[in-house]
């Protein structure tokens, strides 16, 4: 009867897991001890018998489903985020649309909104006291054109002295005529302010005699010397359109994430 220690050596030997020196010693013993060799034969037989067991085919696939492991798709996790974003976007859209409606339907509010623009024009012109008279006249030439698109074109032309200078001279002459003789250049800042903003001084209003709508338009178009041509309403409308598109996209994303 082979002792357990020798069985362990023989078992490791058939798996080629013995160190070289230990393997050599065992092989020497195997050549001398028939009982040890018989045990080796039996262990090899057992190993071959177990290895002869056929591989069993799994009866089904063991892939996991989300409900088995409590895993959730990342999409439903995005649902509350999209829902909140949609709510905020819709709220902002309503506020902007309301404001847009108020601006377009109320001339008073338009004027109020435009007042800061007029102040800006005053400051701009004030800083241009050393500016030659024709250029100031060019700034005041905007009220003479009533349609906004034409005004924008005219304003653009004012940046081209050769083309716009002759057209702009006429209102300037009227201004000079109404306010009495004044040195042609440089123009005082008061005169420049009067010419640029007719609603602020009665004399300027008399000179250009614009309708209230034209006055508003004048104020709106006055900063045309400034390189930003967009009016406040068009800017607001752009925001409304952009926000509406964003709201639609977010609503779609919310719906999709909920479906998943």
């Amino acid at each position: 009867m082979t002792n357990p220690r020798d069985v362990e050596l023989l078992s490791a030997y058939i798996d080629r897991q013995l160190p070289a020196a230990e393997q050599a010693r065992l092989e020497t013993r195997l050549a001398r001890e028939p009982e040890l060799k018989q045990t080796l034969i039996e262990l090899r037989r057992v190993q071959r018998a177990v290895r002869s067991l056929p591989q069993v085919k799994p009866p089904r696939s063991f892939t996991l489903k989300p409900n088995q492991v409590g895993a959730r798709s990342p999409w439903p996790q995005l649902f509350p985020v999209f829902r909140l974003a949609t709510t905020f976007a819709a709220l902002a859209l309503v506020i902007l649309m309301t404001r847009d409606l108020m601006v377009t339907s109320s001339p008073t509010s338009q004027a109020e909104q435009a007042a800061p623009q007029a102040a800006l024009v005053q400051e701009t012109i004030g800083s241009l006291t050393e500016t030659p008279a024709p250029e100031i006249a060019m700034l005041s030439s905007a009220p003479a054109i009533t349609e906004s698109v034409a005004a924008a074109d005219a304003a653009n032309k004012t940046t081209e002295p050769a083309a716009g200078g002759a057209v702009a001279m006429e209102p300037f002459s009227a201004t000079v005529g109404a306010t009495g003789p004044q040195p042609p250049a440089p123009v005082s800042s008061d005169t420049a302010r009067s010419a640029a903003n007719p609603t602020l001084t009665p004399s300027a209003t008399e000179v250009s005699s614009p309708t209230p709508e034209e006055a508003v338009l004048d104020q709106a178009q006055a900063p045309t010397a400034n390189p930003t041509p967009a009016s406040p309403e068009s800017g607001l409308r752009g925001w409304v359109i952009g926000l509406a598109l964003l709201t639609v996209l977010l609503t779609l994303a919310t719906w999709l994430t909920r479906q998943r």
Partner: protein
Amino acid sequence: MVRSPSMDEPALIREAQRGDLDSFNRLVLEYQTPVYNLAYRIMGEGDSASDATQDAFISAYKNIGYYRGGSFKAWLMRIVTNACYDELRRRKRRPAASLEALTVVNEGPDAEAEASLVAKDESPEDHAQRQELAAQIQNCLNHLPEDMRSVVVMCDVLGMDYAEIATGIGSALGTVKSRLSRARARLRDCLRDQAGELLPAAFRLETEA
């Protein structure tokens, strides 16, 4: 086991650790055959092996964050071995319902599953003898203590080396050697007593050089 060439196991494991179930399921498809075979040989029958395999993969997915490298196959084998031990312990607490399953001889659907992998050029007599022999070997495996059973199956059925087996059972290399030798000695005695005449000539009369 031949690994599919397109499989990037470390990448799949990383994705699975981030919670990607699809990546984990690719690993399942890769390893489900050895995992099921280990469970089948430890449990001795198909239904319990299926349950243990499914439990093992669920547990592996939930604990894959604790996997710290090394042989992923050995890590999986450890999980399925523990799942099998849990099931066997449950059976011991309810012996009336499971006594038959512990000593079952392969018949019915399980035998059919094995038969599907038998070589086509095998004669019906050889096939029947092979089936009977497999049933006897499995019966002897079933009579081994659980810790010995898992080691001998990992080594001789799944072809894992000692280091992988040590990881698979969570023990030292010396423990693997010791359990394996004792398991083989017990199997020798069992096969001599129960299946001696069934053993083919190659198993019975072989003489070593």
